[in-house]
C-alpha cells in the first residue's frame, strides 16, 4: 500500500460521499447491468472487445530487450559506461560481503579458488553461538539469550552450520543495507512530496515485479555471483521498510510535532530526534519485514550463485528428500527467528536511553563487548587444540533421515483418496467456475469497469490510472494470462484474509498466544515454500490447488501481523472509556478496536495481495499457466523484454488493486470519522 494518504486525500472522498451516498448504488447498478449485458450479448457485436486482436499488440517486449542491450553495451556517461557504474556498485557491495563471508564461513584466504591458502580460519561455531548468546543477554536478558543460542544450536546439531553461515553472511550485508536505504527513502518521501510521488510507483514495481523478471538484467549488469543476489534481494526487500517509514512518520501525533516546533527543532532535528524515535515501534515492523523478506529470497538468491541453505533446500527436494529439505528450511527459519528477535530487542533497547557513565572506564561501559571478544578469543585458541570447538562434530549431528518422507508416504498411501475428494470438491465448485468466468469477460468491459470504479472511489486521476494500466495489460497481449493470475491470487487472498484477520483479532489481546502465533507466521513467511510445495504435489498433484495452498500459506502472514499491529495500537484509554460506558466485548471489538485498527488492517490486506503476487514465481514451478509462468519461461530463455513485460503486468494488477483498496478504505475511513 504505497501511500494511502496521497491517494485518499482527493477531495471527492469526503463530504461528497456523505451527501450522495444514496445515489451510489444506483449508478453502480446501472454500470454493472451494462457490463453484464455487454458480456452476455456483446461477443457477436464486437468480438475484438473480448479477445484483444493480435495486430494491435504493442511490441513492448522487443523494445525493452533492445533498450537493455543498449544499456549494457553502449550506454555511457562520458568518462565511464553504465556497466562500469553497476560493476563499481557491485564491487562496493562485495567488500562487506567478502568480509562477512570470510569471518563466518570460508576463513580469510590468500589467493583465490582451490589454490587459495587459508591464513585465518573462520570463527569457530562455539564462538559464534557464544557471541550471539551474549548479544541476546545484553539486549533482552536471559530469555532472549536462551532463545537465540537455541536457534544457533539447532543449526549446528542438524548439520547445517556451514551453509547457514554462508546465508547469514549475505543477510548480514543485505538486511542493514535494506533498512538504511528504506529509512532514508522514507524520510525523504515524507519531507519532499515530489520525491514521494516519484518513489511511490517505483516501490510498487519493486515489490510486485516477480524477482525472476529482473534476475537476468541484474546478472548482466552486476555480474554473476553473490553480490548480484544481494542486489536482487535489496530490490525486493527494501520497499516495505520505505512504506512503513512513510506511514509511521506521518502517524506521529501532532502534539509531538508541536512540541518539537516549540523547542525550536531544526528540520534535521525534527526528523532524527523527534519523528524517527517516536515512530520507532512501527519502524521495527519494517526492519522485521526486511529481514524476513531477505531470508525469503534465499532460495532464489541461491539460484544465481549465493549458495548456502537455499541451495541445500533445492538440492534436497530435487531428490525428494523431504527430511533434508525441511531441515535446511528450518535452519533458515531458525536464523530468521534469531535475527528478528535480536533486532527487535535491539530496537527496544536503543529506545530506552541508557544512563551514560562517561566517567567509568571502557571495561565497565562495554562489559558485553569485552565478554564477546573474550569468548571469541578463547574459543579460537581452544579450537587450535580441540577440533570440536571449531567444527561441530559430525558424530553428534542429528538428522530426521527418512522420517518425513515416511510421514508423507504414509499420508499418501492412507489418505490420498480423501484428500483427492476434498480437493476435487474445491476445484470443481470454486476454482474452475471462477476461472472460467474470468476467462470469458471482455477486456474492454473490464477496463471500463475498473475505470469507473476508480472514478467513483478516487476521481478522474484514479480512473485514468486503473483504466490505463489494465488497458496496457491487454495491449501487450497478456490479457488471458493476467486473468488466470487474478483468479489464482484473488481466491488465495480471500482465503488468506478469511483465515488471517480472525486469527489476528483473537491473538491481539492475548500475549502468550501472540508469541506462539508469531513463531508460526515467522515460520510460514521464511520457510521456503519449496519445502511444503513438493509434499503438497505428492498429495494434491500439480496444478492450481497446490499453487493456492502455497500462496495462502505465505500470504496469511501479513494479514495476521497487521491486524494485530492495528488492534494493539488502539489507545487503551479509549477501550477503558468504552468499557466504562458499558460496551459488551463484541461492541468493544466492532465499534472501537476494529474501527480504529482499520487503516492497519487495510495495509495488511494490501500486503496480502502483494505477497500473493510475489508467490507467482513459485507457483509457476507447479505448473500454473499464469503470468508467473510467463516470467519463468522468459527467465529460462534469458529474454529480458518478455520477462519484464510479464513482470510489469503483474505489477499493474497489484497497483490497480492497491489504489482501489486504498481509495475505498479512505472513503470508509472518512465515513467512520477517522479522518
Amino acid at each position: 500500500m504505497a501511500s494511502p494518504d496521497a491517494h485518499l486525500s482527493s477531495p471527492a472522498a469526503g463530504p461528497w460521499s456523505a451527501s450522495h451516498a444514496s445515489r451510489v448504488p444506483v449508478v453502480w447498478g446501472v454500470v454493472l447491468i451494462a457490463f453484464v449485458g455487454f458480456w452476455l450479448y456483446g461477443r457477436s457485436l464486437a468480438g475484438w472487445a473480448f479477445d484483444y486482436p493480435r495486430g494491435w499488440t504493442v511490441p513492448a517486449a522487443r523494445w525493452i530487450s533492445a533498450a537493455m542491450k543498449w544499456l549494457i553495451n553502449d550506454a555511457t556517461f562520458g568518462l565511464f559506461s553504465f556497466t562500469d557504474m553497476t560493476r563499481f556498485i557491485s564491487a562496493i557491495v562485495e567488500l562487506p560481503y567478502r568480509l562477512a563471508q570470510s569471518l563466518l564461513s570460508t576463513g580469510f584466504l590468500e589467493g583465490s579458488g582451490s589454490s587459495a591458502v587459508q591464513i585465518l580460519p573462520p570463527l569457530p561455531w562455539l564462538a559464534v553461538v557464544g557471541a550471539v548468546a551474549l548479544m541476546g543477554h545484553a539486549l533482552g536478558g536471559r530469555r532472549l539469550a536462551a532463545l537465540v543460542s537455541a536457534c544457533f544450536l539447532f543449526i549446528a546439531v542438524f548439520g547445517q552450520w556451514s551453509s547457514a553461515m554462508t546465508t547469514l553472511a549475505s543477510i548480514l550485508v543485505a538486511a542493514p543495507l535494506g533498512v538504511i536505504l528504506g529509512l532514508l527513502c522514507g524520510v525523504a518521501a515524507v519531507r519532499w512530496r515530489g520525491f514521494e510521488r516519484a518513489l511511490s510507483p517505483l516501490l510498487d514495481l519493486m515489490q510486485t515485479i516477480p524477482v525472476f523478471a529482473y534476475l537476468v538484467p541484474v546478472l548482466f549488469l552486476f555480474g554473476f555471483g553473490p553480490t548480484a543476489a544481494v542486489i536482487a534481494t535489496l530490490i525486493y526487500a527494501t520497499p516495505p521498510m520505505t512504506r512503513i517509514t512513510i506511514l509511521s512518520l506521518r502517524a506521529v501525533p501532532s502534539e509531538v510535532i508541536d512540541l518539537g516546533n516549540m523547542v525550536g527543532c531544526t528540520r534535521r532535528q525534527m526528523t532524527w530526534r523527534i519523528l524517527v524515535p517516536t515512530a520507532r515501534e512501527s519502524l521495527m515492523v519494517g526492519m522485521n519485514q526486511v529481514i524476513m523478506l531477505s531470508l525469503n529470497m534465499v532460495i532464489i538468491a541461491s539460484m544465481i550463485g549465493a549458495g548456502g541453505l537455499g541451495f541445500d533446500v533445492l538440492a534436497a527436494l530435487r531428490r525428494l528428500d523431504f527430511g533434508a529439505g525441511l531441515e535446511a528450511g528450518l535452519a533458515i527459519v531458525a536464523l530468521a527467528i534469531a535475527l528478528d528477535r535480536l533486532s527487535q530487542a535491539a530496537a527496544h533497547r536503543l529506545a530506552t536511553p541508557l544512563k551514560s557513565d562517561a566517567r567509568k572506564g571502557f571495561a565497565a561501559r562495554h562489559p558485553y563487548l569485552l565478554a564477546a571478544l573474550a569468548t571469541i578469543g578463547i574459543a579460537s585458541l581452544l579450537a587450535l587444540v580441540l577440533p570440536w570447538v571449531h567444527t561441530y562434530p559430525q558424530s553428534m549431528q542429528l538428522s530426521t533421515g527418512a522420517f518425513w518422507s515416511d510421514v508423507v508416504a504414509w499420508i499418501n498411501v492412507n489418505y490420498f483418496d480423501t484428500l483427492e475428494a476434498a480437493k476435487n470438491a474445491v476445484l470443481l465448485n470454486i476454482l474452475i467456475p471462477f476461472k472460467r468466468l474470468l476467462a470469458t469477460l471482455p477486456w474492454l468491459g473490464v477496463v471500463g469497469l475498473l475505470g469507473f470504479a476508480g472514478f467513483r472511489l478516487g476521481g478522474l486521476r484514479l480512473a485514468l490510472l486503473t483504466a490505463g494500466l489494465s488497458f496496457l495489460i491487454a495491449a501487450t497481449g497478456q490479457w488471458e494470462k493476467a486473468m488466470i493470475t487474478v483468479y489464482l491470487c484473488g481466491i488465495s487472498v480471500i482465503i488468506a484474509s478469511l483465515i488471517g484477520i480472525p486469527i489476528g483479532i483473537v491473538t491481539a489481546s492475548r500475549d502468550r498466544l501472540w508469541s506462539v502465533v508469531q513463531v508460526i507466521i515467522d515460520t510460514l513467511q521464511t520457510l521456503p515454500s519449496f519445502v511444503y510445495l513438493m509434499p503438497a504435489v505428492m498429495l494434491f498433484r500439480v496444478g492450481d490447488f497446490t499453487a493456492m495452498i502455497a500462496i495462502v500459506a505465505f500470504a496469511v502472514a501479513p494479514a495476521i501481523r497487521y491486524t494485530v499491529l492495528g488492534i494493539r495500537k488502539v489507545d487503551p484509554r479509549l477501550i477503558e472509556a468504552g468499557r466504562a460506558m458499558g460496551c459488551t466485548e463484541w461492541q468493544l471489538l466492532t465499534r472501537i478496536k476494529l474501527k480504529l485498527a482499520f487503516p492497519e488492517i487495510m495495509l495488511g490486506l494490501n500486503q496480502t495481495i502483494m505477497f500473493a503476487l510475489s508467490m507467482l514465481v513459485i507457483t509457476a514451478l507447479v505448473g500454473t499457466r499464469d503470468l508467473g509462468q510467463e516470467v519463468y519461461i522468459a527467465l529460462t530463455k534469458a529474454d529480458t523484454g518478455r520477462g519484464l513485460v510479464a513482470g510489469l503486468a503483474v505489477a499493474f494488477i497489484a497497483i490497480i488493486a492497491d489504489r482501489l483498496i486504498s481509495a475505498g478504505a479512505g472513503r470508509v475511513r472518512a465515513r467512520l470519522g477517522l479522518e
Partner: protein
Amino acid sequence: MQSSTNTVRRSLRCGAAALAMAAASCVALSAVSAQESTDTITLTLHDWTGQLITTNIMGEVLKQAGYSIEYVQADYLAQFAGLETGDLDIAMEMWETTGREAMDAATATGKVENFGPTGMKAKEEWWYPEYMKAKCPGLPDWTALKEPACAEAFSIPETAPKGRYLGGPVTWGGFDDERVEALDLPFEVIHAGTDAALFAELESAYQREAPIMLWIYAPHWAPAKYKGEWVEFPEYTAECYSDPAWGSNPDMAYDCGKPFGEIWKVGWSGVKDKWPGAYQAVKAFTLDNDEMGSMITEVDLNGKSVDAVVADWMAANKDRWSGWIKK
C-alpha cells in the same frame, strides 16, 4: 579485477628483473604466464546430482593439472549471462534437449563456445511404472495407448475418459501437445512446473501403485529407483519434426518419439586463450551413461557424498583422466 592487477604486477616485476638479471630467465618466465593464466577457473554447479558429479570430476582433474578452480552455484539457464561476460568459465552439462535454445543464443554472441559433447546422451520419453503393464498389456508399443481402455487406465477424474500424461515444465519444450495431436492419442497433457514436482508425483503414484504416465529423463536416479519402461514411439528423425508428410500422420509433424540428445560442455570463449591446457582437458572429457547412472545411484539412493563418489571414480580411472591433461 584482482587477478588482472596481479598479472600487471607480475609483468612489472618481470620488467624490473630483466634490468637486473639475465634477460633469458625473464623471457622464459613471461612465456609461461602468457600461455597459461594462474587465475582461478570457475565451474558452475547446478542443482541435480549428475551435474554435480560431472563438474566435480572435471574440477578434480583440473586441480591435478595444477589449475586453481572454484565452483559457483548458478541457475542452469541464467548462467549464460555469466558465461558471456567471463564471470563464469565452464558449464559441464548443457542438455541438447532442454538447453539448446539458450545455448544457441549464447554461442551466437561469439562470447560462449561449445566445448563438445560429454559423451553422455540425454534420453527423454514417456515413461510408466511396470505395474501399469497389467492394465495396458500392449505396452511398451505406443499403439497400445490408442486403446480407449488403456487410456482410461491412465486417467484421473479430471481427465477421464482420457489418460493423463504429466509432461515436463513448459520450458523444456518437448512438443508433447503436438505429439498427442499428431498421433491422435486419447491423452491430456498436463505440464509440471519443475522436475521436482514431476518426481514428487511419480513417488506419490508409485507408493499407491496408482496409474501414472510421465516424462522421465536419463541419466537420472528415477529409472534406477522405480521399475518401469519408456514407451516406444516411432523413432525420431529430423524429418519427423520438420516434415509433416513423414510418419503415420501425413498432415502433421511430431508423429514420432523424442530425440536422443547429446549433453554438451560449454564455456566462456576466452578460456581457450587464457588456459589452453584446461581448454584441452575440458574438450577431452568424456563419460558414458552407464558410469553416470551408477554414480548417481550411489549418491541419491545409497546416500554416499558426491565427493566420495568422485574420489572413487578418480582412483579407478587414473589412466583416462591423465590422458585428458597430457601436454
